[in-house]
């Protein structure tokens, strides 16, 4: 690549990191005054980052070394006694892959926003926030230790908050951004607790040092239970950021933000940060912690998929689909399918960003997000239609051997099946996985049929619909191509396995009771025990998932495609009224939180307030009354006895007081100025009297 070694020094990774930061600073301060409101600054910055990332990625590809790590030094940041914190850049294959995902999707979303946000009153600020997000996300990926990971983790949270609430005039958007932030806080609390536990036990923050310290640790230092607890705490962060049950509630509401933001942050990159974190810290998770992760992910996958079946808002369907797919990734990691989980992150980033940008294109054309207003749009918006169909095929895991989603989802299902075949008591996980896949295909095809086929349901809106400008359609085409070929042109997940390999668990055998280790870590046992089980599991998974996908696409076609309409969705909804209502209202999770968490907290706050105004204020008022009484008595004494003597003095003082009273203007700034003046005088005096000798 031009003869430059992009991985030889820290310069290039740092440039990737700092370009968006520079763009953010420029945009936030002078963006409004630049021509075109400065959108080209952000675009250029992320473009440079993208180019360097792709160059780095290409060099990593050429190296083809699964254990490649660029050896950058890390610098001491803080020392307190024995404990030091070092900061630095970690650049290995996972970093290179994540960088391409982040900068590529980010660049395309920047480009798309030029068309989508055209004419918005805070146009330049939008780009500033996008740049801030890109900076934080790149920083998160480049971090080499837990603390800087946490810092950037919070920074992406902040930029997500800013962007969800970008149209803060809308009450719903303002509420959504608050909800997102507070819900994430709950997860981040656990995450921070986990980091503190790791520091407490091992005294290290850098990933590699943590793993080494863990390998060296003796069973007397801490028990396995504590390590599991720390792992689950760390995973809490992923539960919040990657919207896993029970903290998933913020992600669907986050769709109040502009659609490009939903595509960038709430589908492709930021929500994947949780999965990325689990990937990075994989060696510290004990078998029990991994089991917790697998169950949370599996449950989320099917739970969100069922909700997506009945939603009518196009972005909400996609939001629940994102939650469900994130559940898949997490489950994949939990059951030991390390490569499959991370691979799904990579493919999902492209096709989910594509789906969101397509929905943005539809919303832009119709000015409506309701599926019931759509229909027949394929004639008006052919590019969007084709792109969205490709995205749908990819997410459904449609079998032609070139659509990316097929491989990654298949890998996860295969790993799950392998675990279940080893340990049949966890059969629920496989049910979660396969049923979730069926629902995914169904709701995605429902979305396509309702949006693009049939007769327009709202003639007026249909008349005004039009294809989007080129800045919006070009990203769609690029992402559509990537959705197809991110799986590496027909080669399946094998090319990915050349670069990403499951790291060895750092949990020492001594910490885990004998026997539990081989039993729990799923494919760990599979890898040693025999590849045949795993191979067989993958074979079954492929056949089963193809079967399931076809059945559910057929069902969706019979239900929602106007030409073959055999099944009436309304009748089914009518017959299964309670189930339909339960799903339509998202299992009443929001209502439950409202009732059991928010309201008690509010009530407690009110109680505190009443305590404040009743007891504390009462005490203060009582004291005041007593003081008034005492003052009155003293006052009488004053008036009679002392005043006489004082009056004389007072007369003289009044004259002086009037002069000094000029100083007392009542304006606090004047007081302050006098105080500063006095301080300067005193300092001057000290200097003159004491120091000059």
């Amino acid at each position, binding site marked *: 690549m031009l003869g430059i070694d992009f991985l030889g020094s820290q310069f290039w990774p740092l440039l990737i990191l700092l370009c968006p930061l520079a763009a953010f600073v420029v945009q936030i301060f002078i963006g409004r005054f630049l021509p075109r409101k400065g959108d080209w600054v952000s675009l250029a910055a992320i473009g440079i980052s993208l180019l360097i990332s792709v160059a780095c990625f290409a060099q990593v590809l050429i190296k083809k070394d699964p254990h490649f790590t660029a050896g950058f030094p890390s610098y001491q940041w*803080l*020392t*307190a*006694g024995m404990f030091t914190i070092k900061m630095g850049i970690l650049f290995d294959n996972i970093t290179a892959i994540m960088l391409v995902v982040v900068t590529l999707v980010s660049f395309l979303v920047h480009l798309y926003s030029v068309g989508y946000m055209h004419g918005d009153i805070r146009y330049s600020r939008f780009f500033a926030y996008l740049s801030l997000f890109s900076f934080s996300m790149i920083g998160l990926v480049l971090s080499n230790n837990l603390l800087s990971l946490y810092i950037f983790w919070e920074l992406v949270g902040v930029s997500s908050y800013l962007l969800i609430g970008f149209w803060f005039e809308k009450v719903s958007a303002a509420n959504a951004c608050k909800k997102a932030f507070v819900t994430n806080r709950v997860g981040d609390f656990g995450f921070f607790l986990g980091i503190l536990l790791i520091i407490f036990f091992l005294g290290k923050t850098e990933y590699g040092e943590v793993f080494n310290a863990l390998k060296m640790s003796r069973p007397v230092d801490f028990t396995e239970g504590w390590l599991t607890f720390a792992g689950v705490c760390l995973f809490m962060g992923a539960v919040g950021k990657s919207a896993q049950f029970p903290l998933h509630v913020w992600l669907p509401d986050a769709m109040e933000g502009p659609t490009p933001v939903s595509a960038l942050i709430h589908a492709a990159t930021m929500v994947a940060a949780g999965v990325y974190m689990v990937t990075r810290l994989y060696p510290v998770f004990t078998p029990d912690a991994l089991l917790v992760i697998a169950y949370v992910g599996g449950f989320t996958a099917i739970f969100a998929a069922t909700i997506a079946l009945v939603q009518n808002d196009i972005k909400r369907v996609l939001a629940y689909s994102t939650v469900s797919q994130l559940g898949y990734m997490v489950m994949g990691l939990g059951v030991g399918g390390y490569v499959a989980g991370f691979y799904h992150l990579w493919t999902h980033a492209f096709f989910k960003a594509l789906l969101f940008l397509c929905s943005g294109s539809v919303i832009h054309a119709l000015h409506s997000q309701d599926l019931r207003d759509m229909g027949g749009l394929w004639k008006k918006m052919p590019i969007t239609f084709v792109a969205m169909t490709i995205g749908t095929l990819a997410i459904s895991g449609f079998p032609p051997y070139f659509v990316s989603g097929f491989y990654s989802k298949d890998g996860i299902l295969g790993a799950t099946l392998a675990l279940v075949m080893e340990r049949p008591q966890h059969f629920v996980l496989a049910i979660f996985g396969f049923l979730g896949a069926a629902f995914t295909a169904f709701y995605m095809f429902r979305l396509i049929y309702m949006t693009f086929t049939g007769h327009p349901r709202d003639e007026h809106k249909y008349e005004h619909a039009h294809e989007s400008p080129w800045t919006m359609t070009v990203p769609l085409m690029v992402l559509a191509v990537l959705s197809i070929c991110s799986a590496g042109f027909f080669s399946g997940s094998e090319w990915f396995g050349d670069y990403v390999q499951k790291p060895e668990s750092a949990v020492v055998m001594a910490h885990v009771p004998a026997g539990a280790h081989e039993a729990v870590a799923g494919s760990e046992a599979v890898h040693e025990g025999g590849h045949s089980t795993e191979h067989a599991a993958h074979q079954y998974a492929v056949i089963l998932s193809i079967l399931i996908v076809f059945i559910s696409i057929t069902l969706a076609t019979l239900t929602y495609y106007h030409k073959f309409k055999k099944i009436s969705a309304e009748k089914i909804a009518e017959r299964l009224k309670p189930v339909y209502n339960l799903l339509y209202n998202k299992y009443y999770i929001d209502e439950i939180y409202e009732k059991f968490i928010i309201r008690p907290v509010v009530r407690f706050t009110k109680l505190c307030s009443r305590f404040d105004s009743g007891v504390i204020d009462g005490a203060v008022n009582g004291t005041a009354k007593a003081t008034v009484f005492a003052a009155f008595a003293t006052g009488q004494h004053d008036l009679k006895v002392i005043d006489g003597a004082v009056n004389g003095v007072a007369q003289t003082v009044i004259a002086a007081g009037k002069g000094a009273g000029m100083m*007392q*203007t*009542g*304006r*606090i*700034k004047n*007081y*302050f*100025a006098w105080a*500063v003046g006095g301080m300067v005088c005193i300092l001057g005096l000290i200097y003159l009297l004491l120091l000059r000798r």
Partner: protein
Amino acid sequence: MDLVFGKMLDNLIIIGAILFCLGIYTVITRRNAVGILMGVELMLNSANLNFVAFSKFRWGMPDGQVFVIFVIILAAAEAAVALAIILSIFHNFGDIDVDTKDLLKE
């Protein structure tokens, strides 16, 4: 090395002094109460800078840095109280221009 560090200390103290003066200037000239609050933050942080500078380049002990953490926390608490006061001023007067508020004279 001492030479470099000594220079560093001087520079940091000068930056601290400049920050402090900027803070005072902000507090005296701003009409907006929130602006004044920002000035106060500047002054606090200039003091923080001095703490850190002396801790690192003069005494080589972390005590100063610990102080700084306390100061930051206190500053956050102070900001909360000050913002509450500003809000209540806003409720009572309808604006937060401190030049027009001379109730202290009463």
